[in-house]
């Protein structure tokens, strides 16, 4: 029995306290032969199943192991992988997918149309409790799979297999941007062996991507090796990636300095000011796709979605010096926000009408504040503006302390922070709509497209708990533009509507954009070809290093 061997193992380790200790513990030895790049990671919070992975710990590994219909290059442009073509029909309400027929999984089986449709149905089916189920909400028949007691192998009616290499997708509503979603983790294919034993698959996944799974030592590392049969757009130039699990960014940074770790994309705040000048490491620092904002709930006193609220929101936004914040607090690992997307996302613009509300202008801020006071006065003795954040986020405290200082210095009001100890509790307060303060929000895109930022976060359909519109912002005008964009024939035209939508947001400020988190990467000496992609990650396939 497993327990016994562990307990005895523990006892032996106790007995041999002075003797060679390294022999104790899980002595699974892994051969690190060839050019294996070690990369800082965190322990996956779910099994390594694409449809059940919604956080970076597992996501980074899944991305290396699987290839979807399409992939994204480092600039966020869509390129075909398994798909030969994806063609819209019926005014963007149906998509016809034709596959290349020479792709295989690591176990030798072919990647077929069913590899996709079965996997998507499995994930969308609530009975299977997969974290990424919501990604299929736009496909016909999704709602029927959300009822309790649905058979676990029930299929999505909106997916029709035409042949081994062809299937169609029926959507409930027209969408021009739907195909851009298809490179995300939720849409990866699964081999037939998955359905025999999902749990076993989750600890030893079989994919069709540039790497294949080797081993996972819990809380220590995950090793993947180059897949020589892969012939897509992103072949590996190294022999494998070793995802080394760290719980603390400072420790990981120290290991890069000491040459024990090759790559790190999570710069600890203790080194954010210095890492670009640190002679012991190499640094890359580019604008990234993660947008950090703070949200005003629509029913917040003085900050509601009305004339007074809009003025006060604008005043607060203009009270903050984003340049200095990014430079001093984040050491230049962030770029001041100028819109509601990100510079690496198609559709970004730095010259939107009304974007000056995101620049520091304390005098203008005071004027706007005074205008709001004329509508409904703010009482400095009783009224306090609070900024909530989750305290287990390592950099939130210093950011929101600085924001609060700026607001109180610029506007002469009382502005304080309200840390909530854990992320779990913080999200609970938000989803229960209990926070009546401004609160920290951040958005990491699922796929590189404007709708993933705007529709998910600010559309009325995503409000009231139906999406990520945590402030319950509702603007019919904005919604209309989103619908127009979705029905637009090309992405270019869609993006024009999205930018018009952003201009509405800049006036209403349901959330105040602060900065784009940079893709900041530190690598050890002797590591080459470190480039960042739209996911704020290094392009792992391209990284090489000197071998002694």
């Amino acid at each position, binding site marked *: 029995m497993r327990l016994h061997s562990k307990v005895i193992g523990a006892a032996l380790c106790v007995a041999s306290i002075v003797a060679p200790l390294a022999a104790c513990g899980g002595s699974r030895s892994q051969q690190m032969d060839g050019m294996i790049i070690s990369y800082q990671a965190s322990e996956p919070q779910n099994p390594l199943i694409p449809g059940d992975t919604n956080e970076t710990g597992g996501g980074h590994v899944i991305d290396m192991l699987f290839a979807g219909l399409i992939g994204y290059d480092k600039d966020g442009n869509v390129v075909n992988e398994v798909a030969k073509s994806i063609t819209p029909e019926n005014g963007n309400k149906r998509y016809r997918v034709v596959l290349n027929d020479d792709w295989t999984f690591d176990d030798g089986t072919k990647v077929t149309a069913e590899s996709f449709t079965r996997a998507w149905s499995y994930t969308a089916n609530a009975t299977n409790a997969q974290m990424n189920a919501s990604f299929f909400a736009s496909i016909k028949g999704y709602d029927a799979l959300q009822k309790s007691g649905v058979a676990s192998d029930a299929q999505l009616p909106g997916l029709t297999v035409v042949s081994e290499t062809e299937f169609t997708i029926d959507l409930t509503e027209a969408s021009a941007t739907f195909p851009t979603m298809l490179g995300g983790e939720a849409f990866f294919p699964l081999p037939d062996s998955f359905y025999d034993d999902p749990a076993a698959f989750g600890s030893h996944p079989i994919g069709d991507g540039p790497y294949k799974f080797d081993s996972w030592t819990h809380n220590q590392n995950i090793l993947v090796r180059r897949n020589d049969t892969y012939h897509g757009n992103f072949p590996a130039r190294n022999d494998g990636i070793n995802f080394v699990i760290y719980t603390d960014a400072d420790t990981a940074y120290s290991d890069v300095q000491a040459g024990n770790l090759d790559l790190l994309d999570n710069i*600890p*705040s*203790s080194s954010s000011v210095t890492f670009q000048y640190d002679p012991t490491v190499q640094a890359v620092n580019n604008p990234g796709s993660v947008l950090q904002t703070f949200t005003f709930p629509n029913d917040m006193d003085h900050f509601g979605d009305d004339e007074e609220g809009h003025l006060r929101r604008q005043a607060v936004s203009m009270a903050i010096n984003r340049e*200095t914040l990014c430079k*001093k607090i984040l050491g230049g690992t962030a770029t001041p926000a100028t819109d509601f997307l990100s510079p690496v996302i198609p559709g970004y613009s730095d010259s939107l009408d009304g974007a000056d509300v995101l620049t520091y202008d304390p005098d203008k801020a005071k004027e706007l504040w005074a205008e709001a006071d004329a509508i409904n006065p703010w009482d400095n003795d009783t009224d306090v503006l609070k900024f909530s954040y989750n305290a287990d986020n390592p950099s939130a*405290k210093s950011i929101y*302390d600085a924001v609060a200082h700026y607001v109180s210095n610029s506007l002469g009001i009382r502005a304080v922070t309200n840390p909530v100890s*854990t992320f779990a509790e913080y999200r609970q307060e938000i989803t229960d709509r209990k926070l009546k303060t401004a609160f920290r929000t951040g958005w990491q895109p699922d796929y590189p497209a404007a709708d993933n930022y705007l529709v998910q976060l600010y559309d009325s359909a995503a409000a009231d708990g139906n999406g990520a519109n945590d402030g319950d912002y509702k603007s019919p005008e904005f919604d209309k533009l989103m619908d127009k964009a979705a029905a637009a024939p090309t992405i270019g035209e869609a993006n024009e509507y999205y930018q018009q939508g952003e201009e509405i947001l800049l006036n209403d400020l349901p959330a105040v954009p602060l900065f784009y988190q940079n893709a900041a990467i530190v690598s050890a000496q002797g590591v080459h070809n470190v480039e960042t992609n739209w996911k704020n990650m290094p392009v792992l396939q391209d990284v090489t290093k000197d071998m002694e």
Partner: protein
Amino acid sequence: MTSQTPDTTASQACASAPLAGQERYVAPLDETPLQQVDSIDESQPASSMWAEAWRTLRRNPLFIVSAVLIVLVLLVAFFPSLFAKGDPNYCDLEHSLDPAGPGHPFGYDLMGCDVYTRTVYGTRASLSVGVLTTILVVIVGGLIGALAGYFGGWVDAVLSRITDIFYAIPLLLGAIVVLQMFRTSESIWKVVFVLALFGWVSVARITRGSVMEAKNLEFNTASEALGLSRIKNLFRHVIPNSLAPVIVVATTSLGTYIVSEATLSFLGIGLPSTMVSWGGDISAAQSLLRVAPSVLFWPSLALAITVLSFIMMGDAVRDALDPKSRTL
């Protein structure tokens, strides 16, 4: 006292008439008159254990130094504006991590706040946490430990098992939960309460151990034999005689409570963020260790000095209360 030997008479005889060759001098009885063994010197004021202790304390340099320091810390805590002119909450990011300059002897922290002003204003919150927690812990822990150690039997068994339960729960787990219950509260009491809730156990254990030791001492057996009730005996003899280790632990703990507050801040569940405290500032500055060590240094120094003075005070009090160690 000399021991009574059988040949007393013989030696007395010798004293009066030394034998030839015997060099020893023995003073005649009229030069050193016999004293009554149990005589009481009526001219001296009545002495109590505490009065005696106070007299010793006043002459102890350790006490004087620590008392001066504590008075100083208390002054800073009560009247911070006498020591620093600025507003501890006024921070300008433009000054972030600027070095010391005129009017700003300790420089600025990451937020651009004046480190000197914050260190001065942080005294009150940090000191209050330490002092209040210690008082609570000594009362609760001391009482429970004394009862358990003194009465033994089932009282000891029950109380000891309760201490076991509390001791075994990790402080952080308890702290997260309890601090959440009072999360809307903006006072320091929630932190005091949590630290006391998980801190009383160590005092209880020490008290129990030393009471168990003290109750077996001869004077207890004697006073019980003389008919003193068990409760009275506990309070009059056992507790005072087992106080020394408790005082040592309590004074040391006072510092660690201030330190624990810093750890809770490090985890994001410490004092309200609007409150200036050393713990909060130290935990905020630890990540700047490699960039600006001085920001970490000053609040740490203030904390260390405070802890130091309380511990020295505790040592001095212990020396005064424990007559045995006085002859050192």
